[in-house]
Structures are given as structure tokens and as C-alpha cells.
């Protein structure tokens, strides 16, 4: 029984389904929520889903973290380090965007008292 | 008798004298004679229907009496006309237009009046707005009497005029030129000094050349 859960296919399937569910939650947020903070949270959820998806699919059973401590030079049994590096970078970028977005939101709210993105339409035709 | 002054009884003697003098005068040169003949053969008429006599014009000029056979033919504008027919009484208002029309005609030019009103006022002898004797205001060449004269009489008037033109008799327009002051004075008496401003520019003032 546990073997079933220990197989790569299963775990990849679960991760895929799970992250896509998470992604769908984010999408749902984007489609329905109009509060700027909630929209930004939805984006973050979507990004997180992608991260999970990407990292998860590159994990196979029996592999260890790609940490080179100097002793082992064979690089075997390691997870592909590139996705992890990429995700780390992406997380940082996502954070930066989130921070910028929130700061914009705060400033804007201070000036106008609006946090509904569909009502931010002073710039329009 | 209210307006007896208008009849010329208070005219200056000098003017009166001049008028008497202007009698007949024959033309001499051959060219003049020929011209006089042609003038007599061709008379363009502007028919000024001033009074009841206007009704006599159409038969005179159309098929029944046909004045055209004598070379007498109607025209519309005074510029082309040799003869003006004044067919009846002349109110002051009409007189003004008649004078103007007459002055716009080119010399030689003649006047024929119909009926008695232009001669002595006729049935309008005591009217307040009708002139009594046209000859004081414009030189009448032929007066056809009758009230109104029939077309035959009008045609008779034409032939009389033609005869006089042919003979080179001194015509009314010459009298008018010579005694302009007299006529103008009479006209102004009736029409007043406040006549149309353009009277200043009439032939009266332009006689000695174009100074305007």
C-alpha cells in the first residue's frame, strides 16, 4: 500500500493534481476577487502552485538535496539543482513584485480610499 | 382757383417772352432733312398709361388699328423711345415719374397727350393733386383732344407729329432745353424742393458736360 504511495508516478500525480488545484484556487481568486490585496494573494497562490509543481516534478524517490559539501564529488543521487535555483530566484522576484504591489496599494489607498481594482478607473476612455 | 398760381400766371415775363419766341423753324441741310424724314418714319413709343386713355393704346397698336404700319411701334424703355404718350390726367406723383421718364429719353423726343385733362385739368380741374396744364411742366408737342380720343384720333395725332417732324418744325424738346429754368421752376413748385436727390444729376445739370 505504501509502495503505491512511494512510487514516482503517484507522487508526481499527487503533486500535479495538488498544485493545479492550488493554481485553480488562485485563478478563482483572480476571477472573483477585486480587492487589490486579495488579487495579489491570488497571484502568489498561483505562483506557489507553479513552484510546487515544478519542484515536485523534479523530485524522484531516493534522491537527496543537491548540496555539495566538498566530500562527495560524484553528483549522483541528487535532485536536479537547476529548478531549485530557478524557483529560488523566482520566489525572490515574486516577493519583490508583491512588496511593490502592496506598497502601491497602500499609497493608493491613502490617497483615494480605494482598494477595489475594478474601481481604479480614473485612467480610462 | 385755389391753385391758380400753378397755371403759370405768375411766371416771369422774361420767361414768357422766350416761350413766345420759340416758334417753327425749318431744317436746312440735306442730311438734316433726310434724318428728319427717317425720324418721321420711325417713331418708338413709350406709352405711359397715366389715366383712362391707357385703354386706348392696345387697340391703337394691335391688329385693329395697327399703328406699326406708320412706323410707330411701342418700346419698353425710355432710353429707346422717341415719343412718350401721356394718356390722361397726371397726378403729382405721376408727374414726377413722367418727368424722369421724359428726361431719360434721348433727343429728339416728343410728347403726345391724350384727352383734355393734360390740357386744362378736365374733370379734375379742381383736384388737389392733379396738374392742370401739362405744357407748363413738360413741352407737349401734340395734344389729342377727346375724352378719351378714339384710336383713329390717336393715329391722327401720330400723323400730325410725323408731319411736323418731317417739316423740321421746332419741337418740344428744343423748347425744353431752351427754357429749362422755366420748366424746372414749375416742376419744383409742384413737386417741392425735396425731390429725389438724383434730380441734381439729371440732364438738366449735365447739359454743359459731365461735371459730376
Amino acid at each position, binding site marked *: 500500500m505504501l509502495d503505491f504511495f512511494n512510487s514516482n508516478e503517484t507522487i508526481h500525480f499527487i503533486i500535479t493534481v495538488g498544485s493545479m488545484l492550488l493554481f485553480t484556487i488562485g485563478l478563482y481568486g483572480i476571477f472573483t476577487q477585486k480587492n487589490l490585496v486579495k488579487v495579489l494573494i491570488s497571484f502568489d497562490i498561483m505562483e506557489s502552485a507553479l513552484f510546487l509543481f515544478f519542484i515536485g516534478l523534479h523530485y524522484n524517490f531516493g534522491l537527496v538535496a543537491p548540496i555539495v559539501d566538498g566530500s562527495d564529488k560524484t553528483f549522483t543521487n541528487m535532485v536536479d539543482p537547476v529548478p531549485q535555483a530557478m524557483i529560488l530566484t523566482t520566489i525572490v522576484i515574486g516577493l519583490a513584485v508583491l512588496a511593490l504591489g502592496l506598497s502601491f496599494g497602500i499609497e493608493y489607498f491613502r490617497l483615494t480610499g480605494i482598494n477595489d481594482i475594478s474601481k481604479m478607473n480614473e485612467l480610462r476612455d | 382757383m385755389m391753385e391758380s398760381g400753378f397755371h403759370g400766371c405768375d411766371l416771369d415775363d422774361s420767361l414768357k417772352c422766350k416761350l413766345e419766341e420759340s416758334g417753327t423753324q425749318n431744317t436746312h441741310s440735306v442730311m438734316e432733312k433726310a*434724318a428728319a424724314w427717317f425720324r418721321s418714319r420711325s417713331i*418708338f413709343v413709350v406709352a405711359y398709361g397715366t389715366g383712362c386713355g391707357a385703354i386706348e393704346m392696345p387697340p391703337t397698336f394691335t*391688329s385693329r388699328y395697327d399703328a*406699326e*404700319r406708320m412706323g410707330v411701334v411701342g418700346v*419698353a*424703355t425710355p432710353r429707346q423711345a422717341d415719343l412718350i404718350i401721356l394718356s390722361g390726367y397726371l397726378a403729382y406723383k405721376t408727374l414726377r415719374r413722367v418727368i424722369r421718364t421724359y428726361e431719360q429719353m434721348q*433727343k429728339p423726343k416728343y410728347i403726345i397727350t391724350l384727352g383734355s385733362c393734360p390740357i386744362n385739368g378736365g374733370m379734375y380741374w379742381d383736384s388737389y393733386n392733379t396738374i392742370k396744364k401739362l405744357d407748363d411742366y413738360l413741352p407737349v408737342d401734340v395734344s389729342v383732344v377727346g375724352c378719351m380720343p378714339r384710336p383713329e384720333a390717336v393715329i391722327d395725332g401720330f400723323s400730325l407729329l410725323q408731319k411736323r417732324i418731317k417739316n423740321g418744325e421746332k419741337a418740344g424738346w428744343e423748347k425744353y432745353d431752351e427754357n429749362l429754368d422755366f420748366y424746372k421752376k414749375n416742376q419744383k413748385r409742384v413737386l417741392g424742393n425735396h425731390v429725389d436727390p438724383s434730380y441734381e444729376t439729371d440732364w438738366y445739370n449735365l447739359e454743359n458736360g459731365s461735371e459730376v
Partner: protein
Amino acid sequence: MIFQIILLIMLAYVVGFIYMGLYRNITARIQGRYGPTVYQTFYDSIKLFSKKNSVSYGWMFYLGPVIMATGAVLTLILVPVFSDSDFLRSVTTQGNLFLLLYLMVLGPLGNALAVGTGGNPFGVMGVVRGLTRLIGLELPFYIAVVGLIIASNSSDIVHIIDLQKTTGLNILVHPFLFIAAMISMVGFFGASPFDIPGAPQEVYSGPRTEFSGKFLALLMSQGSIFAFAKLVLIIDLFLGGADSLWMLVIKTFAIFITIIFIGIVYGRYKVEQAVDFLMKIPTLIGVIGLVRIIWFG
């Protein structure tokens, strides 16, 4: 040469005046009158020349009738009056039919200028009516002329005359064109129903309102010369021209009497009625003739 031309002008003058007199006389007879003598217009002309005064509004007013007369005389010498006279043939080849079409309008233009200078609004109204009528009047005539030019492949009148000696008279060959041209001609002669420009009941005498004395006389003289020239043009185009004085008189008189008969029986069209009519019936007749020449000729 100068002598011949002067002789020609004299002939046109005399014949033209006689025709004008005849016009009045015949009209009178048709109306049941005795009418004036045939020389009446001549008397009128001399009388007007001998007027002591002629009012003038300045040099353009003075020159207008002169331009008009020039146009008439120029038209006359460019129309071959005698088709076999070598001299006239050589003169007329200096011009052509198109030139004549335009020369015929030069006179009205000179008149119009003088009228405009005169400053009489009635005169100008008359001119405008005349020019408006001209729009309709020229159309059938142009169609006829164009048809003849295309049919004889030449705009040279002498050539058109010569051609008729072999192909037969154009009046028989191209009857539609002849009818169109004749209806126009009625208008060109100022006869009813196209005599609106000078309608005395409406606009005084129209263009002639201000003309008097010698100017009017000049207008009348050129009118008779011009009328003669137009008659000659018609007989040249449709009746094979004239080679002798008799032929000339007979042919022109035939055309002339037709025009009188047409003119006498009609009332006067308003200008828009005239143009409407001219743009319909005569134009249609002309176009039929034209199409006949181009597509079936």
C-alpha cells in the same frame, strides 16, 4: 479683298434688314394687320443713328456693342456665303465650325459686358436669362454640328458643302440633326417661344434696356448681319450652300420663313421651361441623329 469683304458686309446688312423687315411684315400679316413696310427696320436703324444723344456709361459700355458687331462681322466673313467663290473659300478656311460656334457667343458676351457696365439690374437679369437660355439652346445645335462634323469628318464648312454635292443634302441625309438645329435656330433668332431674355413685361427690354441712339442702332445692324450669317450657316450646313445670289436668297428665305412660322404660333416659355424643353425634345432628336451617324452611319 477689302472691297469684297465690305461688299459682303453691305449685302448682309441690306439683306439682313430686309429679312428683319419681312419678319415684322409677315408677322403682321399673320396677325391680320397691314404691318410696316419691309424697309421699316432700315428706317429705324437710320433714325437711331441720327439721334442727337446716346447715353453711355463709360468706355466698356461704348465698346460692348462694337465687340458684338465685330463678332457678327467676323462670323459673316468666316461663313462661306457663296460656296463657289474662291476668295470666300480661302477666307473661310482660316476658320472652322468650332470657331464659328464660339464666335457666335462672342457677341452676346460683348453685349453682356456693356449691359453690366450700364448697371441696370433689369439688363443684367436679361443677360442672365439669355445666358441660361443659351445653355439649353446650344445643346441641340451642338449635337447637330458635331453630328455633321463626324459625318463629314471635317470641321471645315467648305468641305461640308462640297461633300453634300456627292452625298446629297444634309437635310435629307441627316433630318434629325436638321430638326434639332432648326429648333435651336428659332431661339437664336430670338423668336418665340425662346424670347424670354428681352421680355418687356418682366425685365424692360432685357439686355437692351439701357441702349439708345447709335448703340441701339449698332446692335440692330449687327443683329441683322448676324441673322443673315446664321441663315447662311444653316444653308451651308444642311442645304448645300448657295452658289448664286438667287440660290442664296431662296434658300435663306426658306429657312427664314420656317423660323417665322414656328415663332409666330407659340407663346413665350419661361427660361426654365425653355431650357427644360430644349434639353428634352430637340436634344433627344439630335441624339437620335447622332447615334445614327456614329453607330449606323
